[in-house]
């Protein structure tokens, strides 16, 4: 009985500290918006208040503007969705001129997702962003399954991964996360390649490669034929890859893939993630960051934990 009372008192008296240090990027809580679904943040900014999100990973930026894939680009799937946006983006210069200024002042950590078809393009974007104020880190997207050239090739070959990470590393002093493709047999090898090449953190997973067919017209449903599967459907796959990546490397891991609840986020942390990102879940509930943040706080209070440190990777021990 006394123990229970003690616990109750404790619960009231302390406010758990949700902050984490992700590869040198200090986050007020471990919840980021994943690259893509959130765009460049403006739109959601009008809609939900940002206060419970620790930061934004903006949509992939390439050296030159990319038009993206032909529609339809999206389809719902059981407990998930396919997308084949094809990394449509305005290109580095327009991003810096138009999007970055608006993003700078939103009071959130800002991580820029970098894409390219060649090593030079990746390095070019990193170089072009090097002088810009207000960017807290880069996320190297070597894993997008929706573009035909480059992209995935880097993410499924350890040697190529090493090269592209080294090339970008030379251009930037910013904390560098490398976002891995889940479409590989052994994620540990890829994670280690990125770590050895100088990454400060690993980010995973990107979408799984998939497709659907419209039987009415006997054609692939997506304009691009193939797309990337995301959402709760893939969470068990994502969680296992985060577990394996965290086991393979010493640098911190940013986990994502299908998170829609605080319990999901906790599972990623217990598997070894330092922080988590939410993508598709934002479509189901634009206030998801608040739901997760509140749930994490409640969990820490219930467990009498002051912060998330002890939970990171605890299920692996």
């Amino acid at each position, binding site marked *: 009985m006394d123990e229970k009372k003690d616990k109750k008192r404790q619960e009231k008296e302390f406010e758990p500290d949700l902050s984490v240090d992700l590869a040198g990027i200090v986050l007020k809580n471990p919840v980021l918006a994943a690259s893509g679904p959130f765009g460049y943040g403006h739109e*959601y900014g009008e*809609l939900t208040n940002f206060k419970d999100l620790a930061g934004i990973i903006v949509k992939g930026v390439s050296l030159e503007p990319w038009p993206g894939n032909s529609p339809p680009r*999206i389809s*719902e799937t059981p407990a998930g969705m396919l997308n084949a946006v094809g990394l449509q983006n305005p290109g580095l210069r327009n991003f810096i001129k138009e999007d970055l200024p608006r993003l700078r002042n939103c009071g959130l950590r800002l991580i820029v997702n970098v894409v390219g078809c060649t090593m030079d393009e990746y390095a070019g974007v990193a170089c072009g962003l090097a002088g810009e104020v207000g960017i807290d880190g880069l996320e190297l997207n070597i894993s997008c399954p929706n573009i035909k050239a480059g992209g995935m090739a880097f993410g499924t070959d350890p040697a190529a991964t090493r090269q592209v990470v080294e090339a970008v590393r030379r251009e930037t002093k910013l904390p560098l996360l490398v976002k891995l493709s889940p479409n590989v047999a052994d994620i540990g090898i890829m994670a280690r390649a990125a770590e050895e090449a100088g990454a400060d953190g690993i980010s995973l997973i990107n979408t799984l490669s998939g497709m659907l067919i419209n039987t009415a017209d006997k054609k692939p449903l997506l304009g691009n034929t193939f797309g990337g599967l995301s959402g709760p459907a893939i969470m068990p796959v994502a969680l296992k890859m985060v577990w394996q990546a965290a086991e393979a490397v010493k640098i911190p891991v940013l986990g994502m893939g299908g998170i829609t609840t605080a319990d999901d986020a906790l599972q990623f942390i217990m598997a070894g993630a330092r922080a988590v990102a939410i993508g598709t879940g934002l479509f*189901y509930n634009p206030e998801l960051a608040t739901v997760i943040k509140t749930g994490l706080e409640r969990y820490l209070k219930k467990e009498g934990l002051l912060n998330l440190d002890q939970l990171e990777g605890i299920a692996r021990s």
Partner: protein
Amino acid sequence: MGPGFCRITLAAPDIASLVEPGQFVQVFMPPEHPHMLPRPFSIYKADAENGVLTILVEIKGKGSRLLADRGPGSFLKLLGPLGRGFPPPPPGSILVAGGMGIAPLAFLAESVNKPRTLLYCARTADLLVCPGADLDLPGLQIIRATDDGTTGIKGTAADLLSGQIEGAPAVFACGPRPMLTAVKEICLRWGVNAWLSLEERMACGIGACVGCVVLTIDGYKRVCRDGPVFPAEEVILDG
């Protein structure tokens, strides 16, 4: 309304007071279905005074069925008003509605007082689900047509429009892609301004994810934010 369709009236004062004809809402799924995307529906009626919105739903798949099955008094989460609607139609405008395309056009027809003509078309009589009373508006001329002639004139929206377009200052259309393609073609031919309301599969509904694009003369544009209403000459409908 006929089988396979339903009308949902929602208390949503904020949206009802802001919405313009052609705008839409994202309707979130009931909480027992936490892993489904919201579905976009055009506003059919907005009663700002009473804070009430109405949408018309054609039951096509799982999402629309779930919404149709909700009982009176149940709660639905909405996001809106979203997108860019129609500009105000000048006197003598023609409104072309194909099937459920009636939803935004009924709203548009109601929003002005000037003389205007509504061409209300569908494949067959059962698909002309909009209650006549709702379209009984001063200054509104209505011509109904069905492809199979089961009610109104026998013919397509394009047939009808070709017969009516002469002298019209502008055309406003919503309906299936082939209908819009035909409308666009006729309007370009006659040199009449036209606005088309498009549909595309959506995720965010607010312009963030770039998932719902349509090809335009300026590249891909987002149906949810740059549209759903586009000037006919801008959109490339077979792209």
